């Protein structure tokens, strides 16, 4: 319990430092955040146009897609707003920049992940909550469940980023592969899940676990389903666990880059 509290304090401290670091370049930070907000909003506009023309897609309406975008964007946003280095993991490994993190008297992975905040993710996080509250207009139980599911989706995204980023330990220059896999995950996560059937659906529950973003959380919110909520968390923790295992197994193969690096 003490360890958990200690790491929570570390997370809070890092969030404060990372935020100060971001607002040191206030103009850049705000413009990136606003741009991501607008980017996400453009997708909502696309879906609104689509559903104006074709009102229902396999039982999904525009509100379901807005819910999907809200939870996917804010889940991704919170994940990388707090643990921004998850996105940079393959580059850090390939360039031999892990050395700095290995010197700290903390477990390497949480410390490394917390070390940076991704500026655009703030836009995603704010966007998700904003559109859910403004467009879906949830009652209190739905809002609370949304915030709960936000945690599961964030855990899933961090786990997936760690899992794909850790491939760099095994296949060398994995930045491109990790980016492609992440794009695939995000893309599959932001389309109505009923359009995927058969083998692809199995794939989306396993290799590219987008169903734990698009299908289960949306279903949980539609039906206020406890089982779907639990399945969402189960999937998220499974991916996180796999990511942690692959990272630490890969860490044994890590070779120092003899890189001299200063961290302020």
């Amino acid at each position, binding site marked *: 319990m003490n360890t958990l509290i200690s790491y929570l304090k570390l997370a809070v401290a890092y969030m404060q430092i990372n935020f100060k670091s971001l607002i040191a370049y206030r103009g850049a930070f705000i*413009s990136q955040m606003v741009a991501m907000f607008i980017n996400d909003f453009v997708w909502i506009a696309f879906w609104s146009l689509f559903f104006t023309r074709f009102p229902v897609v*396999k039982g999904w309406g525009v509100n379901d897609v807005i819910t999907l975008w809200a939870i996917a964007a804010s889940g991704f946003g919170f994940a990388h707003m707090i643990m921004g280095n998850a996105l940079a993991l393959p580059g850090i490994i390939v360039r031999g920049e892990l050395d700095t993190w290995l010197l700290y008297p903390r477990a390497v992975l949480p410390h490394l992940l917390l070390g940076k905040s991704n500026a655009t993710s703030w836009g995603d996080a704010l966007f998700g909550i904003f559109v859910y509250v403004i467009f879906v207009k949830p009652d209190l139980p739905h809002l609370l469940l949304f915030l709960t599911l936000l945690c599961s989706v964030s855990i899933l995204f961090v786990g997936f980023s760690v899992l794909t980023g850790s491939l760099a330990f095994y296949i060398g220059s994995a930045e*491109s592969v990790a980016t*492609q896999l992440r794009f695939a995950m995000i893309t599959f996560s932001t389309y109505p899940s009923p*359009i995927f059937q058969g083998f692809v659906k199995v794939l989306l529950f396993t290799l590219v676990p987008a169903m734990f973003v698009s299908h289960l959380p949306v279903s949980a919110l539609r039906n206020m389903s406890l089982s779907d909520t639990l399945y969402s968390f189960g999937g998220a923790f499974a991916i996180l666990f796999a990511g942690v295992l692959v990272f630490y197994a890969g860490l044994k193969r890590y070779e120092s880059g003899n890189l001299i690096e200063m961290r302020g």
Partner: protein
Amino acid sequence: MDKYIFIALTAIRSKLAYLGEVGSKTIFLFVVLYIFLSLWQVTYGETNQTSLGGLTLPQMLWYLVVTESIILSLPAIAGTVDQDVRTGSLALQLIRPISYPLNLLASTSGERALSFFINLSVGSIIALIFVGPIAISLQSLMMFALVIPLAFTIDFLIYFLIGLAAFWLEDTSGLMLIYSRMTMILGGMLIPLELFPDSWQQILRILPFSAIVYGPARIFVTGDQTLFCSILIQQIAAIIGFSLVIKLIYGTALKRVFSHGG
């Protein structure tokens, strides 16, 4: 002119050295095309229509192959200008006996031509597997071959303008992101303009986005001659207009360049 052709060919050769990286991007193309096929299959099925916006399901997928190939072939234009301005390497470029904008146009056009060719080839194979071939006439291919370089030129000019904003803004990545999304949605990358509300269509057809994405893709798929003429006029007007704006802004921006020896 020869030197710019040489720069474009050098950019292609240089890109060919990293063919693996270019190829890895086609994984995303596969994912996107599969998702769109699934979405449109459901949409055509639920509406009981064989044609939406004047396109059959196979035509729709081929349309998306072209639009995605255009969007995914984009090289780093604004980012390069932004970096050149921020790091000061623009000053170094200016002392060379070539025009900086034309040099960048040539090198990025070479890169883009190769990426587009690879994307279109891979996308065509994917479309052939998913929905089979569609009838494409030689005439539509020729019209397409004429409008696609002009589409890339307009895109270049707009991204170059965004890059020039680095002279005044702390960060231009936000502008790049917004412009790219505008091109994707308002340019008809995801849905052809015919499926937009009628009131929107009139406006979208005038904007440059449609001349970059929708026009070339629709011409490729349908071989529409009337559309070809209107897109060609729109493209030429856009190129002239944006070139003039760049001339004005680039001239103003260069007055802000200070360099010293060392």
